[in-house]
């Protein structure tokens, strides 16, 4: 069976459309089927993926030839598990939304969910810079509508902030992408295809620097990293829960992926030049995010700020510019997505029992709900990267890479490891332990909720036992991306081309 990535990409949108046409009551179910089919297809792709084989399942069609851009999709070690994470997260969130219901326009809701799913897959699978940029911007549109139409009280402010921030990033990135293609082309016709860009070699150092900064700004805003997190609190407080789960679980990972896929291979000089700056931003994100997470009482914001910190670790790993650090970062991107989705669901269930998102209103949630508390415990321990979890394997490699590259930054970053245990356990204890809050009613997980949560938690456990499954598949691509920086501008093109073509020189 050949894997058609275009089919994988559009499946969720098509399902969303069909569901919308069929009617209110079918919309959720059909969207869920679409997402689940995409998940199944992604699993097949992972099983058929050849670990050392470079870019695979390539689709390469002409798209806008006047602009030199092609409809080129492909899977390599960098995006394979992120694609799987995306389909897992969207399937779980769509199921959660379909189960909880309560949206006054379900057809619109599930259509936007499907489109968001496709857009994320598109950004991950794109092997063309313009295509990547288009999907990267397209990702935002469904979330603006989902928040604006179905969000909480302050949804207007949330949408405005989200829009302004990411618009700035998007425009910078678009400009940078075009400038890069033009500069790289020289006398040749313009092409946005990654393999062409790699073959043409890196551009002049001065241009690399500002183009790199534009891309970096876009990615850091999307994550968000400190100090670009201004949109995050309103966004997190007002998004509908299933939307928030995918937003936090997946979108930030596309930004991290962007660093590995674009910045390191194409701007090797700039990546090395700005290494310390980016590392310091990452470190500030870790420390600031952690400190905020252990002082806020809103459960959504605890998870939000903890994501700021966790994304800080991921950026730290990538910009260690060492292969083991980048491997850890990529693994951690998958891990964080896998823990944050169930974490949001669990927090949502507890908020429903307490009648509020606030930790001060919770307490003793474990009293009649041992299963819910146990699931929460696994998720919380994985989030704080307890050794034995896959998150720890990722963090271990990240910090090892940074330790070898910049020892002082690594040592300071360990403060974030300790703080993670404080904010996650604090949330766990205040939500399900301690005396009960005023309105808190401890109820066990319902079977339907369990059907969604338990597989997610089992996935975390399975990956904890064998993170190698992801590492072995990404080793080659990550090695090539990092080698591009490490071995200087001349050889970097060769390395990037190697990663693309999948053959020996």
């Amino acid at each position: 069976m050949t894997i058609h990535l275009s089919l994988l990409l559009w499946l969720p949108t098509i399902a969303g459309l069909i569901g919308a046409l069929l009617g209110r009551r079918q919309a959720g179910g059909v969207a869920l089927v679409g997402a689940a089919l995409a998940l199944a297809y992604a699993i097949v792709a992972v099983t058929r993926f050849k670990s050392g084989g470079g870019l695979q399942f390539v689709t390469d069609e002409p798209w806008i030839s006047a602009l030199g851009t092609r409809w080129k999709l492909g899977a390599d070690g960098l995006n394979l598990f992120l694609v799987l994470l995306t389909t897992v997260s969207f399937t779980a969130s769509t199921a959660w939304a379909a189960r909880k219901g309560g949206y006054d326009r379900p057809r619109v809701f599930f259509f936007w969910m499907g489109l968001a799913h496709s857009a994320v897959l598109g950004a991950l699978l794109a092997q063309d810079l313009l295509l990547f940029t288009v999907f990267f911007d397209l990702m935002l549109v469904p979330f603006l509508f989902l928040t604006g139409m179905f969000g909480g009280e302050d949804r207007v402010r949330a949408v405005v902030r989200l829009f302004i921030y990411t618009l700035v990033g998007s425009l910078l990135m678009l400009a940078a992408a075009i400038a890069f293609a033009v500069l790289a082309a020289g006398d040749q016709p313009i092409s946005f295809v990654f393999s062409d860009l790699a073959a043409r070699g890196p551009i002049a150092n001065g241009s690399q620097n500002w183009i790199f900064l534009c891309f970096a700004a876009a990615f850091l805003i999307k994550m968000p990293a400190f100090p670009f997190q201004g949109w995050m609190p309103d966004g997190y407080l007002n998004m509908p829960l299933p939307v928030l789960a995918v937003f936090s679980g997946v979108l930030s990972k596309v930004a991290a992926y962007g660093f590995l896929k674009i910045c390191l291979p194409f701007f090797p000089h700039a990546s090395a030049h700005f290494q310390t700056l980016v590392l310091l931003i990452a470190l500030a994100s870790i420390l600031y995010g952690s400190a905020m997470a252990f002082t806020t009482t809103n459960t959504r914001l605890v998870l939000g700020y903890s994501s700021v910190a966790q994304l800080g670790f991921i950026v730290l790993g990538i910009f260690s510019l060492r292969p083991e650090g980048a491997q850890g970062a990529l693994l951690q991107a998958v891990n964080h997505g896998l823990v944050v989705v169930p974490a949001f669901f669990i927090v949502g269930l507890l908020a429903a029992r307490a009648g509020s998102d606030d930790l001060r209103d919770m307490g003793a949630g474990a009293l009649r709900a041992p299963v819910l508390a146990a699931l929460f415990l696994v998720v919380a321990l994985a989030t704080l990267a307890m050794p034995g979890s896959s998150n720890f394997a990722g963090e271990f490699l990240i910090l090892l890479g940074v330790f070898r590259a910049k020892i002082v930054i690594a040592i300071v970053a360990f403060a974030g490891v300790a703080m993670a245990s404080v904010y996650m356990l604090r949330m766990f204890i205040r939500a399900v332990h301690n005396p009960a809050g005023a309105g808190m009613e401890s109820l066990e997980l319902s079977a339907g909720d369990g059907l969604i949560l338990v597989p997610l938690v089992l996935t975390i456990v399975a990956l904890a036992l064998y993170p190698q499954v992801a590492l072995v598949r990404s080793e080659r691509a990550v090695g090539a991306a990092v080698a591009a920086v490490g071995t200087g501008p001349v050889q970097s093109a060769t390395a990037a081309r190697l990663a693309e073509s999948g053959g020996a020189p």
Partner: protein
Amino acid sequence: MQTFAWLILALPLAGSLITALGYKLWPGRLPGVIGTVAIAAAFVCTVLTLIKLQDLDPEHRQVLFVGWDYAATFGVDAEISILIDPLSLFMALVVTGVSTLIHLYSISYMWSDKGYARFFSYLNFFVVSMLVLVLAGNFLLLIVGWAFVGAASYLLISFWYRRTTATRAGIKAFVINVVGDIGLILGTYFIFRNSGTLDFFGTFQQAGSLPEGDLTAGCILLLVGAFAKSAQIPLHTWLPDAMEGPTPVSALIHAATMVTAGVYLIARMWPLFEHAPAAADVGAVIGAITLLVAATIGLVVTDLKRVIAYSTMSQIGYMIMAVSAGAYAAGLFHLMTHAFFKALLFMAAGSVIAAMAGEQNLDRMGGFRKAMPFTFACFVIGGLSLSGVPPFSGFFSKDEIIALMGERGGWHWILFVAGYVGSFITAVYTWRMIFRAFWGEPVAEALELQRGHLHHAEVHRNPATGEEEDTDVGFPGSEHHIAEREWPMKGAMIVLAVGATALGVLQLPFHTTDVVDNFLEPTFRGSKYFGALDPSDGFTTIGLVIGAVLGVAGIAIAYRIWVQKPGTSARVQARFAGLHRLFANKWYFDDLIDVVVVRPFGWFGRFGQQTFERVFVQGTLVGGTTSIVRAGSAAVRAMQSGLLRAYAALLVLGALVVVFYFLAQS
């Protein structure tokens, strides 16, 4: 051997899962039985592995079994591998052996608790974690086991999870243990960046050629891990608070097994520490300081379990001092005897606390001698062993450590003296506790028990704060169980009492018996100190006599102060008010950590929350950007009427403008 070795880990894991998953299904005491059988089976497997190992030649008694690649990439050889050698099996034997007894005890002791199945699931999980820790064949798995025991300890400390005192103690223990984990990880990094392997054997083979600076830094960081886990100064403050957990937990985790992990770590890393003498000295000195400081606090604490907790700290100080100074076998021998007599003391204390219906304050106790003869006998045996009175096991193991400190010579003489001073204080605080609980006028609970009726509190109170609590899930139930009436408790305590009395025969002075030494020899082959430190018979004799005299003298003084002249204690307190305040405030370590660590972090968080986020991020960054598009945002307020679409269109339009701009330029 491989099958048995893996089964050691698999059986408690299975026990933990079975008791957890069947929490609604298992009737009556079945979860307790399942848990106990699982650990007992693991003990049997350990013995079988041991037998197979002893069949091998001594030089081949170090076997590594590799399971699977865990996170191996780019030269980081992170795999799942377990190491079977005399040291790891020694630890596994102590862990599974003592655990079996404590599980057995818990079948009765925890019976009326609403979280019965949960308790055994956690307890089994702890045993798996501890076994991963001691059987790990590389640094990565060691770190995993290290953190797992921390998590198990957290779960069990906050077992009564609706008590805020318990959850606070839990998070404190967890976070301090994470600090230890970080020390361990960073130490591993320092070593790994030179050795290029995470494997123990691979690292040890290169121990001599690693750069000294990195090796010393690495070893000191490993010590941070050891100090956090083994409650050594200054990372000890979690252990007394950990007494919030049920008493069997205190016996198993916070006395016999987990807290000795630091001792194991230093012994396991002996090739590294022998090449980093500066780090080893740090370990020895901190061990000595801890043994003295903890002993002095033990003199004044009034909570029965906390006295034993400080005693544990102090005794582990001896062990850390021993293994850091090269007295490996002596340190490990003391680890074993301590596991027996300390677990016994905790179990006996649990029985007393049950008779007091949860009350732990020594001031409220008294006169239990007649009411609880069996518990009393166990307490006395444990106390004699702890005080180092011959011929109990603690006497031989402690004196061997102290003698070897003298044998090292040089500044180690200070440690030698510290050991004897600590030994004297140990006898005093141990017997202060025993005299106050068992001598004197019987309290109401004791009298009630003498009449054959076990006291049960009508109103449940938190022993730490006196707050009233309900007896719903999460609190000890209405019934309490004492050793006198329950054969599982009695049986477990008898076995431990026999061990606490007689285990000394394994390693008698003057090389009369050398079982521990001979057994451990393959692990320590090539060591500078193992076997080389051998005090002369005359020196040993003097040491033994001093030890015995100090132990008996301590008991005599305690008898004089707390039995013969009951007012003496108050007079001494008044006379040395400053010293008493220092001890009673636990040398102000909690306050110090609060000022140096907790408050700055809290301040930083609040500053971020209240000032930075509000003024800078929301005010300047967001406000500034927002005001630029104020006109636009006014339109967005009417978004539901469809203006959002206009925004989306604007996004596309803006993109197109930029596209054309650049196309025009090229």
